[in-house]
């Protein structure tokens, strides 16, 4: 029998004197095998993965356990390795994709530099060759313009793009073991398919083993040979994927799988129409950025979105889906006035059916304060949007403090209440943001947005880091509030199942333009645009028996220039959006 590449035995990790957050975790990874680590948000997946690489937070303590890494006939105990030996392993033989790509990339260094560093370090490669390889990898993780990425800084990238850069960084040196901590949360399904395909290719090519942390059971079904299910710091079930997925044995596993959302088989009845009471209206919104890189040469401009028209009715949910980097976040930020649209674009907001229209792109100070109370945002990258030196208690009470709501005690109470709403314990109020798991931070972000009881909520992938059961809980919460208080959502997501569930209207974006827009039932059952079709096809399903063809899906719709005649375009010179049937608009020629 082959020795396992990595063997984790009875690992327990705790913070300070508190009870351990990871308890007696054991699993093993065979060479070339993919092990999926699934489980509840905050159950210790990330900590376990970090323990393998010995990059735990300073305050974490390994109480017990052993991690053995064996390859090429030698095996070593990672927990007792010297730092020097550890450095030889990190990045070289084991590499890791971190969960929060924005914070995990250095803001001052270009992506090319950061990614190619691994090669220079461990592969002893000349610069030019390293660059070539990196550009190639960039291309493989789905960047249309690798050269631009090479000289971009992380803050110039969209969430998904950063994540892909992170993936490229981990894979470019072709390690023996790849630890991927939720590598595709910020990716649209086609890009996700492409990335997963790449991982599989590499596995075939080099015999790489993978620990894949994910909450997307569809991905698990498509990728994993082994599954480890974690809950509250413990492994509750582990075994071959077909077995676990097919017939979950443990109570938690059962619950988890039951919660997996799916695009409903039959069209859900459309909700009641309430016409022409727009709370938010984006008209002809475009945004171009100038790249910071290249001080001496001519400035490079990037069109993040182009003539986007979106309107959100009061009490409704407008979902935006689309390719990573297609300008969704940009639109959302413009909608909230965090960014100004290029000249000509207009953003109109009416907080109350009878109220005056406020021009978001041109607000007076008073209007701004007023608007900021009514419209809130859940950021795509929750970690960066939480002040690192503020305790969560302060962060959550801050919006109320700003607007002078309630007494101190009331504010605290409300903060605690909010935490409970999103499924966290109020005792965490005194913690700092870094002491949470990815999914917990995402929930904090949601909690913060809700404290002010806004009328408009812009959610930029609010549940991407949540396991399905918690996601379910959050979605219910959002729906609840919407129905109770008439909240309106601009909802950005990659998860079509979630969109199908919550949206009243869906806009599909690709390369800065909206290519198709319709209510979900129309869209999901009668997609017209080739890109929309590709998206739906790429949605993985949590069924081992129905794997999607990653290759095929990854090609997706391909480049706009390869699309059928009716939809084809180059650059931003897209055809106009035409209404093909009532409420269903598609960008096509005539």
């Amino acid at each position, binding site marked *: 029998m082959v020795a396992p590449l990595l063997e984790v035995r009875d690992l327990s990790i705790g913070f300070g004197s508190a009870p351990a957050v990871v308890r007696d975790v054991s699993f093993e990874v065979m060479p070339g095998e993919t092990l999926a680590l699934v489980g509840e948000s905050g159950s210790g997946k990330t900590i376990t993965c970090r323990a393998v690489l010995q990059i735990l937070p300073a305050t974490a303590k390994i109480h017990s356990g052993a991690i053995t890494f064996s390859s090429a006939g030698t095996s070593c105990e990672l927990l007792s390795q010297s730092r020097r030996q550890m*450095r030889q*392993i*990190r*990045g070289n033989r084991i590499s890791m994709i971190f969960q929060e790509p924005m914070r995990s*990339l250095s803001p001052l260094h270009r992506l090319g530099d950061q990614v190619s560093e691994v090669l220079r370090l*461990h592969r002893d490669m000349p610069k030019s060759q390293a660059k070539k390889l990196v550009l190639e990898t960039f291309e493989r993780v789905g960047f249309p313009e690798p050269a631009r990425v090479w000289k971009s*800084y992380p803050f110039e990238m969209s969430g998904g793009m950063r994540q892909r850069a992170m993936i490229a960084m981990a894979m470019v040196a072709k390690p023996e073991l790849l630890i991927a901590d939720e590598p595709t949360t910020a990716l649209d399904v086609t890009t996700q398919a492409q990335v997963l395909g790449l991982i599989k290719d590499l596995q075939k090519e080099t015999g790489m083993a993978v620990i894949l942390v994910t909450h997307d059971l569809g991905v698990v079904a498509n990728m994993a040979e082994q599954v480890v299910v974690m809950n509250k710091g413990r492994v509750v079930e582990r075994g071959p994927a077909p077995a676990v997925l097919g017939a979950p044995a443990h109570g938690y596993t059962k619950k988890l799988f039951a919660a997996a959302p799916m695009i409903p088989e039959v069209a859900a009845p459309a909700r009641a129409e309430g016409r022409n009471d727009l709370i938010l209206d984006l008209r002809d919104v475009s945004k171009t950025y100038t790249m*910071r890189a290249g*001080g*001496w040469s001519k400035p490079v401009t990037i069109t993040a979105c182009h003539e986007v028209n979106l309107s959100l009715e009061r009490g409704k949910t407008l979902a935006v889906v689309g390719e990573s980097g297609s300008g969704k976040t940009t639109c959302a930020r413009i909608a909230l006035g965090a960014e100004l649209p290029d000249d000509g674009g207009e953003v109109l907001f009416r907080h109350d059916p009878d109220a005056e229209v406020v021009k978001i792109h041109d607000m007076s100070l008073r209007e701004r304060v007023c608007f900021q109370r009514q419209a809130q945002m859940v950021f795509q990258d929750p970690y960066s949007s939480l002040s690192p030196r503020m305790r969560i208690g302060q962060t959550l009470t801050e919006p109320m403090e700003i607007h002078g709501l309630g007494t101190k005690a009331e504010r605290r109470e409300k903060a605690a209440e909010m935490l409970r709403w999103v499924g966290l314990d109020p005792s965490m109020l005194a913690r700092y943001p870094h002491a949470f798991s990815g999914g917990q931070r995402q929930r904090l972000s949601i909690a913060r947005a809700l404290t002010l009881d806004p009328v408009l909520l812009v959610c930029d992938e609010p549940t991407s880091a949540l396991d399905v059961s918690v996601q379910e809980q959050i979605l219910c919460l959002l729906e609840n509030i919407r129905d109770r208080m008439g909240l309106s959502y601009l909802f950005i997501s990659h998860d079509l199942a979630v969109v199908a569930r919550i949206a009243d209207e869906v806009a599909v974006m690709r390369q800065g333009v909206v290519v198709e827009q319709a209510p979900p039932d129309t869209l999901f059952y009668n997609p017209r645009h080739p890109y929309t079709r590709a998206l739906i096809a790429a949605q993985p399903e949590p069924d081992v028996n129905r794997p999607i063809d990653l290759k095929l899906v990854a090609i997706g719709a391909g480049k706009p220039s390869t699309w059928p005649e009716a939809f084809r375009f180059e650059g931003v010179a897209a055809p106009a959006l035409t209404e093909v049937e009532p409420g269903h608009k598609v960008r096509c020629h005539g």
Partner: protein
Amino acid sequence: MMFIRYAIYRFITMLLTLWVVSILIFVIINLPPGDYLSNQIAELRATGQAEGVAKAEFLRTEYALDRPIWEQYLIWVGMAPGPQGWYGMIQGNFGWSFEFDRPVSEVVGDALWLTVLVNLAAVLFVYMVALPLGVIAAAKSETWVDYTAAFVGYLGLATPNFLLALMLFYYGNKYFDLPIGGLMAPEFEGAPMSWEKVKSILVHLIVPTFVIGTSGAAAMMQRLRANMLDELSKPYVETARAKGLGPSKLLAKYPLRMAFNPFVADIGNLLPAMVSGSVLVSVVLGLQTIGPSLLTALKSQDQFLAGFVLMFVALLTLIGTMISDLLLVLLDPRIRYGARGG
């Protein structure tokens, strides 16, 4: 492109600022009552040297000191004709030093490069000592390395420069045969460069560099340490560690660059602060920098000399600030100089 445009814009601003500063400097050096020549005359009278009085009176008209102050300013800068025609700084004439009875350019000439030398040595010392020590102190915070570094640094800070210099000179001379004062053995002054001269300069530089440098080094070290400690636990450092970067390279490439921001902002101040900070040190240590000339010039109100030296320091400051602004843009790509909310 954008960078070049910014640089040009910054340069023009600098010139404007320099002009404003020149006015202020002129006002300040003329602030104390009297002027060089009246003081000179008083001194001559006090010591019974009636002889020189006539000469001093002569100089007063010669250098337009009898005109209203604004006219003196214009003449000094070269924006108005003086008694001898257009003869100001714009025309490249820095005026006359009454104290040394020579043209300012001659008085200052040699001292200028020695000043730069001493201060460069001090800056180098600061960086060579403070940078690694600060980083190490941060990396090994709260260990004996850290504490020793802090102790030594603060020892230097808490000892008055002059006392420190005196001690170093005294014991240095006693036990290591180091020279006392000066920047080179006098026989090398004015002599062409030679290996011996360089050696002499180096030996003479030891104490001044140390004295001027210690306070700067301690300051930089401690602040760098604090800034580094802030950065060390950020996730991007972990990423770098996960790549398998060695500790020194890791520290230097990622957190140090982040922590460096406040220091880049301070580059503008580095040289001028050392120049003016080293004035007193130079005076007490007898270094032939412009420091002593500046102090005597100021005390005796030798206005053209003082004015020139001050303008020189101001120019250094302005250039330094400009460089620091430009570097800041290069260092941190996130920085935009636009107004908020744009």
